[in-house]
């Protein structure tokens, strides 16, 4: 498991929807780990193909896109790429304008109104309330301790995969599954590594 950016690129959590059983353990793990209120949606099990016979519920969260639209549209530079390639929101810069919410194709930005007690590790890992933008932090403090993000760590069916593009590609190949991303989505998420992940 990678905990930081390596030569293989940015480490991300991506879903393996074929294994997801919609148990909600990822949501609970996220909220419990970061002392978040139940209404927090840093990771959310959402309905796909809503209203059709194919309707299914799968987890979605911030993918720390290589071509992150949220970073592009943020007027205050509150959203930035960190050295390890992940996208972080600076609570001290965010003005809560929701531009990132309109720009993100995956519905990742959240704007919780509830004031959340500041965890010691919170800064600079999110706004966590008061209408400011909040999103998945990929559990960076856990990674620094050599741990996987809470959601992927506690997923009972390994439906959330964590790793660099190289590692994710290997895992997907081992499990004989494809990514949940279309070509268009993969280009946004993985940038130049999209072809590798998508298996060309």
């Amino acid at each position, binding site marked *: 498991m990678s905990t930081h950016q390596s030569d293989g690129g940015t480490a991300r959590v991506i879903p393996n929807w074929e294994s997801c059983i919609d148990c909600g353990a990822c949501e609970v793990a996220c909220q419990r780990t970061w002392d978040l209120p139940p209404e927090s949606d840093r990771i959310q099990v959402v309905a796909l193909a809503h209203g*059709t016979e194919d309707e299914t519920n799968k987890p979605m969260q911030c993918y720390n896109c290589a071509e992150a639209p949220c970073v592009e549209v943020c*007027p205050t530079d509150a959203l930035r790429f960190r050295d390890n390639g992940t996208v972080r929101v600076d609570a001290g810069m965010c003005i*809560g304008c929701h531009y990132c919410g*309109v720009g993100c194709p995956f519905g990742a930005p959240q704007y919780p109104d509830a004031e959340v007690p500041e965890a010691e590790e919170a800064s600079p890992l999110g706004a966590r309330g008061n209408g400011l933008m909040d999103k998945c932090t990929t559990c960076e403090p856990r990674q620094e301790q050599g741990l996987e993000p809470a959601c992927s760590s506690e997923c009972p069916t390994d439906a959330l995969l964590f790793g660099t593009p190289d590692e994710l590609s290997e895992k997907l190949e081992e499990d004989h599954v494809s990514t949940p991303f279309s070509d268009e*989505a993969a280009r946004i998420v993985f940038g130049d590594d999209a072809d590798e992940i998508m298996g060309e």
Partner: protein
Amino acid sequence: MATEIAFELPYTEWNWRIGVYIAMIGIAGGAYLTGYVADLLSARSNASEHGRIAKYGYLVGLLGLAIGPPVLLSHLATPFRAMLIPLTMTNLGSWMAIGAYMLLGFGLGSFLMFVWVAFGASRPHSPTVAEGSEGTLAADGGRDVASDGGAEDGPARAATGGTTGGIRGILERLGLVDRLDSLADYTRPSEPIRLALGGVFAIFAAGVLVYSAMAYGSGATERVALWDKTFLVPVQIFGGLGAGLAVSVGLTAVADRSVSPTIQNYALGAAGLLAATLAAVLATVFLLPEQVPAAEPAVQNLLTTHATLFVGVVVIAGLIVPILLSVGTVVGQRRDAVSATAAATSYAIAGLLVIAGKVALALAYLLAAEFTPIPLPV
């Protein structure tokens, strides 16, 4: 198998406040630009009548900024932080940051240009006491300054129409007239430089007008097909110019009781710009779904779920009726079939309807919009 994620609608991110903001800055930008054109034309002929449109154009620009940006700030989680623009708006790749700077320059410009043309003893376009005593203004539907008590109250008051009625009357009650007169006379540059500065500020106003379209944005992902810029930019530019001019004409007719032939020409100009807006809106309805199929559901939303707002308020009440009112009133005036009072009332109603239509258009574009889902294989 490809499937789609069901996202919330864009209106859950941006509510009515964004609509009011976008409408107000559009009207403000259009009013300033048409006012500036009138300011330039005043150097050629009939200075006082063109000057009225210039003055009220700058005022509408100022009022639009007094309403729109505060409404936007009320939408933000940290409005005071957002107001520290040089410190916070650092991503110049974002239209919101670009727009913030455009609004700053435009706000300064509309304030200065309004103060320079509306206050002070030596303001441009001012009807002279001699003109007033000859009754030319009164005959033209305007105020007879000499009989308005201005001449006895000093040159500034005489030059700007005395102390009764209009903007001065309101500001007099607030105790601001003397200060603004002093400020105007102290800061006003020579006429060529004033007009040149007005041109620089007009660039900011034009930027605000463009921003009123680009503010509907989602960056490179262009997730909202209804907000396709090929169609939206003409709607917002013509809409801003037409609404701004129509409101300026209405305000001129009411505040200065002026419905002169020059003002009539501006009313016709506003009607033409509103007709261009109508054409751009209709093009969006009929051509956008053909060229951008993902926009079809949102266009259908405009015509069904939000038909009352879009068809009723935007198209009929906000565009067609003001066009007919303006053109009909001008024709009536030129045939001596409409009194000056009725004409002023008509222009004022047209201006009010245009404001309602512009706000309704911005709201309709937010309410009807849908995110274009990214198909995901499951």
